[in-house]
């Protein structure tokens, strides 16, 4: 096809490489066609990663005004003094504290529900499944407004506890989903084997069921932590005057964005990448040893 002299139907002709000999342009076109999906995928990946790069670069900025949107000059000031902004590190600590407790609560409650769903037959199963599914299919703003309405009506003071209650509520469904998948894929004969080998029901649970379900529980807990730590909308409605880290960032978008926000964002990104990387390497090693 490259040898024919038909001038049309060659998109490469419109690009900058047009003057090149037809054979190479045909080759280039073929290469482009074969790798079109890869190139599109990489473009999407770039779109996904670009803001993180910007956050990272701008953590070394020294802006002139209150807003850190325009590059001025390089500086490590923010990195050497990450808590130099009033209230920011306090809100960060509060967010971590809430995330930890929300994770503990949601993981405990969610794991119990997951076991009930995966291991037992009972009435109202469909209703329970719907109740688990709905919070995940509901816009956050609806859940946020309705829960805040409840608290208002009950005359409960907004603050740490209302945030924690709300976070456990919306993390719960995600834990159930993660743990249930893991428990369902577990061979029930393993528990029977444990009982057959003189393990009481409690021992069976602690020595066999729990260790095998652990990856699912860990995944649910990790997801809870991330969701709770990063939550803004539901917290926005149920926090009162309490300020979590996302709320601090929200407020600073109005008042002025300190460079330290970028420092925290970059640090979080790096820690997350390291954690996920470590997790994946460990998982791969386990998989590889399984195959050998």
């Amino acid at each position, binding site marked *: 096809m490259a040898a024919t002299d038909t001038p049309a139907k060659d998109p490469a002709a419109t690009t900058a490489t047009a003057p090149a000999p037809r054979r190479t342009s045909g080759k280039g076109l073929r290469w482009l066609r074969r790798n079109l999906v890869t190139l599109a995928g990489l473009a999407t990946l770039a779109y996904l990663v670009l803001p993180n790069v910007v956050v990272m670069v701008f953590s070394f900025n020294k802006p002139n005004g209150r807003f850190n949107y325009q590059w001025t000059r390089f500086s490590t000031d923010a990195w050497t003094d990450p808590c130099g902004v009033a209230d920011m590190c306090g809100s960060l600590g509060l967010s971590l504290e809430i995330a930890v407790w929300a994770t503990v609560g949601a993981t405990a409650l969610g794991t119990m529900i997951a076991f009930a769903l995966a291991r037992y037959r009972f009435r109202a199963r469909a209703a329970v499944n719907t109740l688990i599914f709905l919070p995940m299919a509901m816009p956050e703003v609806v859940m946020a407004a309705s829960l805040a309405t409840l608290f208002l009506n009950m005359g409960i003071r907004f603050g740490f506890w209302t945030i924690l209650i709300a976070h456990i509520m919306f993390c719960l469904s995600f834990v159930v989903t993660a743990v249930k998948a893991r428990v369902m894929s577990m061979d029930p*004969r393993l528990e*029977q*084997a444990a009982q*057959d*080998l*003189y393990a009481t029901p409690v021992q069976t649970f602690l020595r066999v069921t729990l260790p*095998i379900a652990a990856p699912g529980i860990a995944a649910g807990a990790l997801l809870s932590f991330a969701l709770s730590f990063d939550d803004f909308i539901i917290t926005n409605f149920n926090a009162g005057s309490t300020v979590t880290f996302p709320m601090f960032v929200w407020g600073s978008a109005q008042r002025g964005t300190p460079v330290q926000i970028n420092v925290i964002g970059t640090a979080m990104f790096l820690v997350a990448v390291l954690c996920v990387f470590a997790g994946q390497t460990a998982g791969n090693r386990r998989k590889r040893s*399984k195959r050998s």
Partner: protein
Amino acid sequence: MTTTSTPQSSGGDVRLHRISKTYGSFTAVHPLDLTIPAGSFFALLGASGCGKTTTLRMIAGLEEPTTGTVELAGRDVTALPPYKRQVNTVFQNYALFPHLDIYENVAFGLRRRGIKSVKKQVEEMLDLVQLGPMARRKPQQLSGGQQQRVAVARALINHPEVLLLDEPLGALDLKLRRQMQLELKRIQTEVGITFVHVTHDQEEAMTMADTVAVMNGGRVEQLGAPAELYENPATTFVANFLGTSNLIEAEVTEAGGTELVLTAGGATLRLPTRRCSTPARKGEKVLAGFRPEKVVLAHADDAAAIPEGHNRMAGRVKIASFIGVSTQYVVDVPGVGELSVYEQNIGRDGRLVPGADIVLHWEPEHTFGLDADQSLLAGTVGDAGADLDEEAA
């Protein structure tokens, strides 16, 4: 109702008394009485969904019987949970704990019973199954045969009164399965523990077990030593499920003596009365059965040389397939239908090709008689009842 004489003390006898299991409206096991003598190798044989695994699980305590009792060594254990029974199981697909290494898998039962120093016992047991060097590997790193041996070791180390094996060789390939059959038989003879073995593989059951109970539709069809079941099946299911049988419908023309005389498709057949599992009177129908390997094929030209007193039928060769050790023929007998014949490959007759007229003959002693009121196809491969899913039970 099952009478058994035991050479040893009845210490480890398993007695099932009117035990049954129903799930909703489905009856997996009909009320069943069974005594498994101590020290024996007992097989429950049947197709998927016949209730054999449910029976085994009721002995293990993993399934609660709907009615009836389970007795172990003279003690009623029906109400005991599995972890309080001196019974251990080798599970289908082994159910080795994936998060524990081989050593800890084997030590699991000892540790749960509060035994602190397990090292010596575990090492001995791993040596018995030739897995000493594998102690610190995880189950996933072992081959199927090795995993199977771990499962046996993990159960045997507890010195149970009864060892239950649920399709223990099902996941292995044919060669390995043959080898493990002998291996399991060796271990059983060595430790002298009662083995109850559930399988759908008739060859496996016959190779290993002293006594085989053939189950079908939640009931025991027949129970006995493998050779006895094979030579003298009591139902068409047993006749077809254990090996292959030719079954033909015949009418009784003479009865009363030590021999019954039957007619089928114009041929006259004789059947020793004691080998007929149903009372036969003159004029009634029975099923006459015989095994394909007991039949001799003779070319029609050689019919005169057939020994006097043999049952004989004339027919035509339809298919001849060379198997190696034998040649398998499908023979069309007018008025009767297709019969199979297995001939050992010693001095093959070159004339026995498809289309050849032949006479097939066998000794009356190799004939068995069955009640005619049952399906000819029960227990064959295409039998719908055999396709029930075991898990659904």
